[in-house]
């Protein structure tokens, strides 16, 4: 298959002599959503960090469009948007300044109108110029999520995107995910929340087989 997106073959990783997962294989194509489930400490974040190319502590194969991540790194990073469970924003800077920097890193030439629009979408209108440390945890998370709307990508890897987000916000994010997936994007996310999106999606449970 030519345009297979992300392909994982027989992935194995351990931490401190504890096997997190072994022989893990799956495929994520354009227009698909995949949820990684599992209890705390089952290796969800480790898996996402491996797939984002941040961690090399694994054996097995990770392929992007048929080529291994190491060989295809430049193309892959151009298509990937990873939102980890860390803050992802500088607290002393305003949401707008944070987004400007994030976009500049990705070479996305966005005018402030686009960025303000993105902040508006995540419900932060009126907070653009405030330093992020004065925002609530949920609002800070939203600043980080606003990157979804100003950085073009094919694949979203989201680590617990719903943390600290209110109920209404969770519904909104689910809707964004649906729209992105029906537009041909792929989403890989971890969450403990029961996901309700309009598409079918698959779930991979970690930690069940090797407890």
């Amino acid at each position, binding site marked *: 298959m030519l345009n297979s997106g992300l392909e994982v073959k027989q992935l194995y990783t351990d931490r401190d002599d504890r096997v997190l997962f072994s022989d893990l294989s799956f495929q994520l194509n354009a227009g698909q959503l995949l949820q990684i489930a599992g209890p705390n400490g089952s290796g969800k974040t480790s898996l996402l960090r491996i797939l*984002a*190319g*941040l*961690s*090399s*502590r694994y054996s097995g194969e990770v392929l992007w469009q048929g080529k291994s991540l190491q060989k295809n790194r*430049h*193309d892959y*990073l*151009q298509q*990937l948007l*990873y939102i*980890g*469970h*860390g*803050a*992802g*924003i*500088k*607290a*002393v*800077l305003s949401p707008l*300044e944070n987004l*400007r*920097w*994030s976009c*500049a*890193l*990705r*070479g996305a030439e966005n005018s402030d109108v686009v960025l303000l629009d993105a902040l508006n979408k995540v419900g932060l209108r009126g907070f653009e110029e405030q*330093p992020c440390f004065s925002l609530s945890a949920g609002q800070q998370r939203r600043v980080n999520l606003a990157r979804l709307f100003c950085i073009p990508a094919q694949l979203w890897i989201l680590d617990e995107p719903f943390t600290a987000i209110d109920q209404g916000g969770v519904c909104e994010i689910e809707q964004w995910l649906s729209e992105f997936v029906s537009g041909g994007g792929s989403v890989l996310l971890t969450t403990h929340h029961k996901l309700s999106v309009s598409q079918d999606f698959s779930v991979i449970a970690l930690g069940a087989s090797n407890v």
Partner: protein
Amino acid sequence: MSEPKLLKLVIAVLHRDIVASLRRGSEWSNPLVFFVMVCALFPLGIGPQPDRLADLAPGILWVVALLASLLATDSLFRGDFDDATLEQMLLTHQSLYPQVLAKTLAHWLVTGLPLSLLSPMLGLLLHLPGEGTVPLMLSLVLGTSVLSFIGAIGAALTVGLRKGGLLLSLIVLPLYIPVLIFGSSAVKAAIEGAAYLPQLAMLGVFFLGALAFAPLAICGALRISVDQ
């Protein structure tokens, strides 16, 4: 990648880092306050005799500037590591080299440069002869930029550790020594009326070497530190 794009990236990183450290305050003020305080303590400790102080001044100023620079080093990547913005720097198709270069430059602009600019005043305090003032400033401008690059390598290597403080000093201090030797000897030579340009030229060589090669080491070290 086209040149303007690279330049835009450098400017964005520079702007963000300078604004962030100016707002936080402690990042630029701590080394500066340390520099002033310690230099002010020396006349109290060794007595106020002008000729004795003048003799020691080049060494004192350079050693304290070096320690002040070391003090500021740990914060270079610590904040970005803690708030996970370092991951964003690594996860872009754009090269890490210009980002690291810009970060180190920004760090020098808020720590090394103010130290260098303030040094004539402290020279006065330590009865540094007038001929030594200009070489002191020049050697500090060049020297602290080298120290920033060397320190950045150490900071990048230890940023992933819980307690990297002591290890950082152990990695970085031996590499600081050549800079200290040439820096303080430039000032001494100027006071004695000898040529001080050779020492400054040596510092210039260190600077160019660090500018070209240190970012490579920093990039590699950052990747290792985040890889866990």
